[in-house]
């Protein structure tokens, strides 16, 4: 109909994602100019290889944040899943694929249980998943206080082989799995009712309920998806390190949240895209890679860079949000100071 009108509206919604994209291109180009051997397809592919698990975990986190919640348990679930992989294969001698299947199931159920608790007992997601975080981490250490290495034919094969792409670029199975997960997430969020319900709940849980949407089911699904993604991330992490350890992935939930936010998704829910999350992970990855190329800087600089980016993005979201509200129609008139808040 009125495409001329529609375009700017769509564009405004895409601003944060476009900014993240620009940022990634800029960072990558800087690296390519500054360091020899940086601007190659292989370095780009390595970003996916080295951050496959983070990408998968952050995708699950995107679902949760879009629905207006938060999942702090993901790092611990990654560790627990790695541990279960190690125990299943090396201690119990079970076949690799079977172990992976069980691990994915455990992760999904763990997430669903948290979602159930959050919905039925109306507990803050922050609190419920904080409890989940302690629980999963605790379980890791009751299984083993030490690192267990994975000695299993299937894991070795998957972990050590690379798939060659045209142009001599080689990627790991983990990277491919992460990209498949990404594609699946895009599909679910954009093309299925479940995905749209996630956005609706993030936009207003009560409204969603009054519109007759299955709020309870969707909320449980969202945490189950996050649990599944964490478990899958744990499996990829196990491929990457070929070991299980209760100290793995400490603080990964924060990296995942950072990637989602840098990708332009609103922490208040209801607005954002998985593509943004992919770009967010790539931005974090490229910063890490640059620090490795630099060689002399401590890895804490990564943290500092992330914190600066986070601030910048939250500021950007505020700006876009305010502009959107100001432009919104006349009689949705919200002259904010008309209802003076105690802070003004």
């Amino acid at each position, binding site marked *: 109909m*009125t495409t001329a009108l529609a375009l700017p509206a769509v564009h405004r919604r895409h601003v944060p994602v476009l900014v993240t994209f620009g940022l990634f291109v800029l960072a990558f180009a800087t690296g390519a100019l500054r360091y020899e051997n940086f601007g190659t397809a292989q370095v780009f592919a390595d970003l996916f290889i080295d951050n496959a698990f983070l990408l998968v975990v952050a995708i699950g986190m995107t679902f949760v944040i879009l629905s207006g919640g938060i999942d702090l348990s993901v790092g611990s679930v990654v560790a627990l899943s790695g541990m279960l992989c190690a125990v299943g294969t090396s201690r119990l001698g079970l076949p690799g694929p079977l172990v992976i299947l069980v691990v994915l199931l455990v992760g999904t159920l763990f997430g669903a249980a948290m979602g159930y608790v959050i919905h039925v007992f109306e507990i803050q997601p922050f609190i419920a998943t904080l409890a989940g975080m302690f629980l999963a981490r605790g379980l890791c250490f009751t299984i083993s206080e030490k690192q267990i290495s994975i000695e299993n034919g299937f894991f070795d094969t998957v972990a050590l082989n690379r798939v060659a792409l045209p142009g001599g670029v080689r990627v790991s199975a983990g990277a491919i799995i992460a990209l498949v997960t990404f594609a699946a997430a895009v599909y679910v969020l954009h093309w299925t009712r479940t995905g749209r319900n996630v956005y609706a709940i993030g936009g207003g849980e009560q409204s969603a309920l009054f519109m*007759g949407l299955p709020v309870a089911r969707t909320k449980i699904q969202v945490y189950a998806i996050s649990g599944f993604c964490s478990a899958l991330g744990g499996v990829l992490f196990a491929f990457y390190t070929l070991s299980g350890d209760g100290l793995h992935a400490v603080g990964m939930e924060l990296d995942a949240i950072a990637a989602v936010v840098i990708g332009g998704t609103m922490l208040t829910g209801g607005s954002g895209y998985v593509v943004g999350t992919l770009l967010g992970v790539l931005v974090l990855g490229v910063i890490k890679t640059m620090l490795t190329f630099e060689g002399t800087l401590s890895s804490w600089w990564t943290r500092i860079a992330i914190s600066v980016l986070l601030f910048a993005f939250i500021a950007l979201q505020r700006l876009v949000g305010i502009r959107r509200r100001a432009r*919104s129609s*006349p009689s949705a*008139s*919200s002259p904010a100071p008309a209802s003076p808040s105690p802070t003004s």
Partner: protein
Amino acid sequence: MTEPVLEVTGISKQFPGVRALDGVAFRLFPGEIHALMGENGAGKSTLIKVLTGVYQADEGRMTLDGAERRVHDPPHAQRLGISTVYQEVNLCPNLSVAENIFIGREPRKFGRIDWARIRRRSAELLARLDLDLDVTAPLGAQSLAVQQLIAIVRAIDLDAKVLILDEPTSSLDRGEVERLFGVMRRLRDDGVAILFVSHFLEQIYEVCDRVTVLRNGRLVGEYPIGELGRFDLVSRMTGQELHDLEQLEEAAPAITRGRRLLALEGAGRTGAITPVDLEIHEGEVVGLAGLLGSGRSELARLVFGAEAADTGRVRVGEETVALRTPRAAIDRGIAFCPEDRKADGLVMDLTVAENIVLALQAARGWTRPLPPRRRDELVGEYIRKLRIQPPSPGTPVRNLSGGNQQKVLLARWLITRPRLLILDEPTRGIDVGAKTEIQKLVVALAGDGIGVLFISAELEEVLRLSHKVEVLRDRTLVAELANDGSLTPERLLGTIANGAS
């Protein structure tokens, strides 16, 4: 007569401290439009929420199509064929217009959502109500009236056998109301049972077949509309003989114009409103009339500084000022009571008293708290004057009925006693009795020398209160009509439709 599709008996619902429903019985037949009437806080919305599973009744039985049923939650009600537009617009502001119409029942092709079809169908559905909008724009960017229409479009497209509309017309103007009634009549002729709530008596008499009256949570009775005159209806709602309604005719404005408060000299804003000339004097009530999207709210926003003028001049008193922010307007004694009480007005978790004194307190600054005695006096006075129910200052605003929430918002701005008060749809959702009180208050304010800019979709109300009426069309001020007794609703309507008279 046929069997009712929906029947409830002995429904009671107790909230802490309030018996919202007390043994209410209600029947709804296929192919009828049934009005549910009652004052603000009578229990209409509560009954609707019980019927649709938002609340569970403490007692009582419900049958649907002759079979006894319990409705667990709103999705369940929808599956049973009950489609509802609740009093407060309940849609998702972050989703597009089209998606808000279709979410939860999106058409699918090859297992995935068919977006093209959603866009096309929603444009068609909106066109039936003569709405032509960009269906891909976010819902949050639409005005309250348009949001209300979208909620209605969603509800009527659900193919329900029972359609419940809780004050769907509260922010619509005549044209839209007519189109909505057209749709409702068609659905009724197809055998849909429609429950309709409105505080506009004319609307009730225009479309409804039968009426059920509630008072203080109790059933007063069920009547065919033809057997109940207006005065009987109102006295059944209020429990008193009606004399207030006539009194308001006497309240017609006496002109006591004072000094000039505010003048717009060719002030406008590109894309929002073409330059206007407008003067408001002390003690003058200026009405703004026009259809939805005619620029009523834009003009108000300009006066309040929520949108800065980019051409012309704004004078407050004799001084030329730049009203760039609401803060600047507030500092000059201009107050604005917004239309959307839920989104930009009330703080739902605070009490009635806290909400009422909020603006006054903010104006004094937080270092000078209002003395508790003065505060209690003021709050008590306005609870009484506006008949806020329940009349206890400590109730959280969340627990009030829609109309009573509106009164709280209004009280907040009335007590600040500004020099110029902008009221955007102040009587939205307010019952006949309280509306009279509010109109009297506005007249009294003007009598004290306060200038009032009054926006309402209800022309009679604008006429009753205003000294002059500014008519807007297509974001342009097309006429200024003096309200000298010769101005009739018909003439005003003609001007709105055709431009300069």
